[in-house]
């Protein structure tokens, strides 16, 4: 008997499939030649039960709302990549403006710089201190890309950093002046504040 035929009959028999009279005869001959297959069948129901117990499915994917929001964004990105917005065939008047705007902008910057140095060098009787808080984007590595996902359903926004090296547990994260870790040393990764003084 061909090996393939034997395997098919044994598998169907193990799965309690209905076999025809001729198939039962074939199976009988197989079992006479290989009695250990009967033991395999007897043990299989227990193995199946154990597999089901171990691989019982979770009710849902973890963070289902975020999964859905991220998926919507991924689909939008994929659609945009497949169908990029068409560029207008004829160049608009804005394109023409770019050519002469560039030197004008450079000139304006030079004038502003000169004016700034003159103001900065002149003695000022009153010292004016202006403190300005400015958000600075922290870029840990060149290969890191950041995106923000708004999970409206969950009322949450998540910042996703792709390509970031694993952050050791010893690091403290701070945002908005609040520390999220227990240890004393606070490292602010999300934003930095800079104080600018003008004399």
């Amino acid at each position, binding site marked *: 008997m061909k090996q393939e035929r034997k395997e098919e009959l044994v*598998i169907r028999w193990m799965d309690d499939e209905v076999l025809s009279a001729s198939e039962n005869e074939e199976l009988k001959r197989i079992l006479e030649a290989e009695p250990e297959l009967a033991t395999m069948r007897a043990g299989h129901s227990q193995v199946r039960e154990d597999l089901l117990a171990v691989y019982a499915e979770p009710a849902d994917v973890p963070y289902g709302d975020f999964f859905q929001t991220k998926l919507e964004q991924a689909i939008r990105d994929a659609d945009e990549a497949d169908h990029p917005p068409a560029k207008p065939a004829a160049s608009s008047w804005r394109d023409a403006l770019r050519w002469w705007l560039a030197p004008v902008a450079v000139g304006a910057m030079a004038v502003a710089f000169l004016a700034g140095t003159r103001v900065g060098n002149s003695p000022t009787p009153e010292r004016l201190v202006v403190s300005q808080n400015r958000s600075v984007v922290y870029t840990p590595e060149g290969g890191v890309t950041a995106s923000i996902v708004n999970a409206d359903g969950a009322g949450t926004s998540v910042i996703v950093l792709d390509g970031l090296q694993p952050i050791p547990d010893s690091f403290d994260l701070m945002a908005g002046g609040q520390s999220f870790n227990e240890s004393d040393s606070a490292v602010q990764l999300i934003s930095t504040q800079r104080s600018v003084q003008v004399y």
Partner: protein
Amino acid sequence: MAEDSGATAGGGGEEEQDAESDLELVARSQGGDSRAFEDLVVRHRGRVYAMIQNMVKNEADAWDLSQVVFVKVWKALPKFEARAKFSTWLYRIVHNVVYDWMRKRKLESAGEFDDQLMKESQIAAGARTMPSQDSRPDEALRNDELRVRIEDAMAKLSPEHQEIVLLREVQGMDYKEIADVMEISMGTVMSRLFYARKKLQGLLSDEAGA
């Protein structure tokens, strides 16, 4: 058409009698109804994630790959012709995504020692897919022992044998569906099942005897 209703809430719960069938949702999605597609995803994402997680043994990778699967589903949906069950078609995409990932990972890690693979049968204590352990301590211990025993044995099977065991014994697919998902002949399905079951039983009895 109505028989292809699929599982609800990621396969964990019972089927809802009045729920729209998968094919109805597919038809509405093909017509541009994004809400219908969302319903399809919500219905199947748990099963897809569980299947992938059981194959790749890593929750974060399984989560990301589940995303890839559904993006591919969205892109391929216009070409889906209801000849096969939607779930069979979906699992074929799962199969392709997981095997692409495995191939890529094998290429990337060629020559490197991957200690994660050595521990692939272990699951992090805080893993979300771990069953909640609100059973009695002795029961929980028994379940943990069973999990370790089964996962150790499964980890020793080839990816093809692992997948066929999961599709047949856990997902409950019939032979034809498995052949469609794995893109192999019925004869190969029977042969793989035969040797996978034989090997799994051998491994489990070896462990029991050890």
